[in-house]
């Protein structure tokens, strides 16, 4: 039996996974006809296995031995089939190296356990791995209250950012009696720079559905929605396939497993608004309205979708549920720290060697994540900070690299756990610029309903823009802090309440950088172009004319093979010459 698995998550596909997959199919078919490959050979597609930086990853299982290839391009397939599958000799140079194993060594996979193993478009492959056992167990041996109790005891907390205890949330919904209740899976994943939820749905959509079915049974909901970003076409498609298959197998629809329980799940596409990740805004959006949040209470568990009790849970939260049911609350509670139980999935990106998707036990240190799993910094440049929690989070400086990753520790450091984006930055990143970047995002995404957020984030963004343009004034830092505190204290929803975090945390840990921008009109990381002057080093310039050709402002003069010069009056400081120069002859100061 030969088995080939090709990584076909969004990362894998953008690296050419589709073509690799088809080439394998074609090659295998070709050789099968010549009868040189064992019968029973199969190729299947799997979801993300995390190490996206090494895509396309391909597993080949031949004679019971598994080999994993990295960086596979479509034109390499033929050789693999011929050398490995026919002649039986794996191509050593293409196999994964030691860092692939290090990447996996410190991880602990609960939610991602089957991602990259099961075929996401085939329910049988999920069932084979023990899928839907948890639904069976709950429906046949547990009461709804037992179920809530188990989740409560496990200590599971919401993975969508807030960290609210899931069992408690369910209990509220149980206590509110109504003729109709709803369960919603929040797959809006608004944090720009994170893709955990997408990967879970793409890699193992049935695990999320299974969690929803269990949740629905526990609270007595008969209708469910998955609210998912339209920007994730592959995830949407796999989810739809999964829902259809689950229905055919009797895990969804009327009278599930003959136990008299009903659940209908619909997919709702988000229409591109970050604030719709907030639960009350999300509900408004499902109802077909502008997605603006409401003040709570009433909480959705009291009055949610169409005014009925509604539980909203994040994708990852729900994907944990079947595992807890199968392995027990005690098992889950044994992982992690005192207050943060279980594992957390992170999307780790930025200036790091192994970017990708990881799952680690709560309480692991940032250092272990960045150096052991992430393989350390790209190009060996010095680590400067890591941003957690996206636009609602903060920057944690290098000096705090031993910080433990759990809800409380991150909050104490001025950031949040968030949904799980980790963006690693090096000495070449400017913290004022990063804060400005996040505020540009939040002021754009602010829904405009409440004044502090609508106007406050805009003003904050303007001040930061001014500072990065060299127009900073004395007192700007204090003013920023002041406005930040007001916006935090008075905004209606989580968007405004957390929007100042990137500013406050960067001021707290990198105040000197703000001062350099404001007082000395200098950007220490050399990022803010308006504060830089570009010059050409006469010694290093070979006169290749590349910069002059590229300069959009025609601000570079010089004869071929003679040193060039930049006319500073004309220079618009776009940095193009710096990027294109192959001889490092362009300086920026």
């Amino acid at each position: 039996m030969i088995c080939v698995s090709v990584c076909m998550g969004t990362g894998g596909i953008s690296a050419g996974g589709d073509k690799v997959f088809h080439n394998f199919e074609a090659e295998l078919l070709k050789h099968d006809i010549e009868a040189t490959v064992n019968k029973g050979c199969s190729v299947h597609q799997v979801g993300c296995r995390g190490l996206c930086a090494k895509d396309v990853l391909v597993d080949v299982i031949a004679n019971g031995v598994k080999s994993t290839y990295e960086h596979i391009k479509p034109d390499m397939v033929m050789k693999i089939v011929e050398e490995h599958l026919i002649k039986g000799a794996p191509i050593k140079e293409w196999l994964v190296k030691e860092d692939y194993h290090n990447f996996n060594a410190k991880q602990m996979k609960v939610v991602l356990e089957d991602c990259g193993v099961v075929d996401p478009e085939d329910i049988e492959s999920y069932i084979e791995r023990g899928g839907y056992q948890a639904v069976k167990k709950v429906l046949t041996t547990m009461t709804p209250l037992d179920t809530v109790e188990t989740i409560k005891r496990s200590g599971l907390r919401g993975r969508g950012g807030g960290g609210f205890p899931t069992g408690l949330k369910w209990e509220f919904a149980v206590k509110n009696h109504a003729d109709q209740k709803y369960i919603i899976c929040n797959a809006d994943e608004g944090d720009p720079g994170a893709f955990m939820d997408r990967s879970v749905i793409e890699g193992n959509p049935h695990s999320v559905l299974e969690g929803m079915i269990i949740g629905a049974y526990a609270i007595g909901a008969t209708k469910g929605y998955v609210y998912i970003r339209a920007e994730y076409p592959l995830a949407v498609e796999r989810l739809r396939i999964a829902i259809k298959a689950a229905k055919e197998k009797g895990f969804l629809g009327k009278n599930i497993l003959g136990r008299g329980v009903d659940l209908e799940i619909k997919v709702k596409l988000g229409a591109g608004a970050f604030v719709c990740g907030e639960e009350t805004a999300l509900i408004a959006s499902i109802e077909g309205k502008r997605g603006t949040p409401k003040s709570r209470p009433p909480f959705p568990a009291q009055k949610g979708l169409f005014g009925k009790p509604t539980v909203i849970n994040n994708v990852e939260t729900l994907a944990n549920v079947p595992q807890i049911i199968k392995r027990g609350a005690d098992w889950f509670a044994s992982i992690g720290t005192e207050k943060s139980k279980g594992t957390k999935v992170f999307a780790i990106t930025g200036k790091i060697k192994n970017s990708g998707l990881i799952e680690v036990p709560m309480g692991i240190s940032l250092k272990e994540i960045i150096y052991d799993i992430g393989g350390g910094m790209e190009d060996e440049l010095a680590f400067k900070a890591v941003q957690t929690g996206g636009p609602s989070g903060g920057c944690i400086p290098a000096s705090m690299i031993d910080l433990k990753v759990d809800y409380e520790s991150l909050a104490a450091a001025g950031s949040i756990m968030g949904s799980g984006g980790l963006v690693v930055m090096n000495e070449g990143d400017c913290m004022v610029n990063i804060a400005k970047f996040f505020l540009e995002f939040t002021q754009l995404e602010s829904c405009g309903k409440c004044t502090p957020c609508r106007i406050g984030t805009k003003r904050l963004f303007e001040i930061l823009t001014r500072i990065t343009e060299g127009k900073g004034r004395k007192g700007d830092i204090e003013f920023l802090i002041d406005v930040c505190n007001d916006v935090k204290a008075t905004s209606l929803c989580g968007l405004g309440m957390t929007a100042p975090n990137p500013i406050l945390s960067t001021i707290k840990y990198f105040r000197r950088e703000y001062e350099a921008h404001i007082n000395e009109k200098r950007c220490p990381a050399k990022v803010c172009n308006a504060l830089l002057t570009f010059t050409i080093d006469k010694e290093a310039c070979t006169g290749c004319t590349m910069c002059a050709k590229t300069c959009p402002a025609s601000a570079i003069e010089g004869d071929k093979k003679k040193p060039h010069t930049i006319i500073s009056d004309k220079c618009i400081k776009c940095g193009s010459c710096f990027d294109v120069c192959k001889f490092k002859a362009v300086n920026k100061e």
Partner: protein
Amino acid sequence: MESDLNKMLEHYYEMDGNIISILQDMEETFGFIPEDAVNWFSHRLSIPAARFFGTATFYGQFHLTKQGKHIIKVCRGTACHVKGSQKISDDIQREFSIGVGQTTKDELFTLEHVACVGACSVAPVTLVGKEVNGKVKSSAILKKIKQLREV
């Protein structure tokens, strides 16, 4: 157009009367939200046109003007930002004399910003149509776009 609109109306009832579904259908069929179509629905359903426009302008997915033949999306998510996506967008804006969300005069190209397409490991990312391009350099993407003009 009439038959398209009737189909959307049917879908609207299937979706329990959700006007976002109408807007999504319009965007899918026409590539933007035509005023005439909104008025048609407004009349049929006795819902003020303002509610359609109010909803359409709230969400990033909807456009009130016709889009270019090729949509160029530059990812402005965090991972792409730290890998220099601002410059890529700046360069495209300068080269084609358009701003974000705008379309070139020849109606060939529209530039958009998106917040993370979920391919952060190959940041910076741009999309030309549906094709995802990772580890993008300004010069390469400009060349690619210009080639589209020629065909």
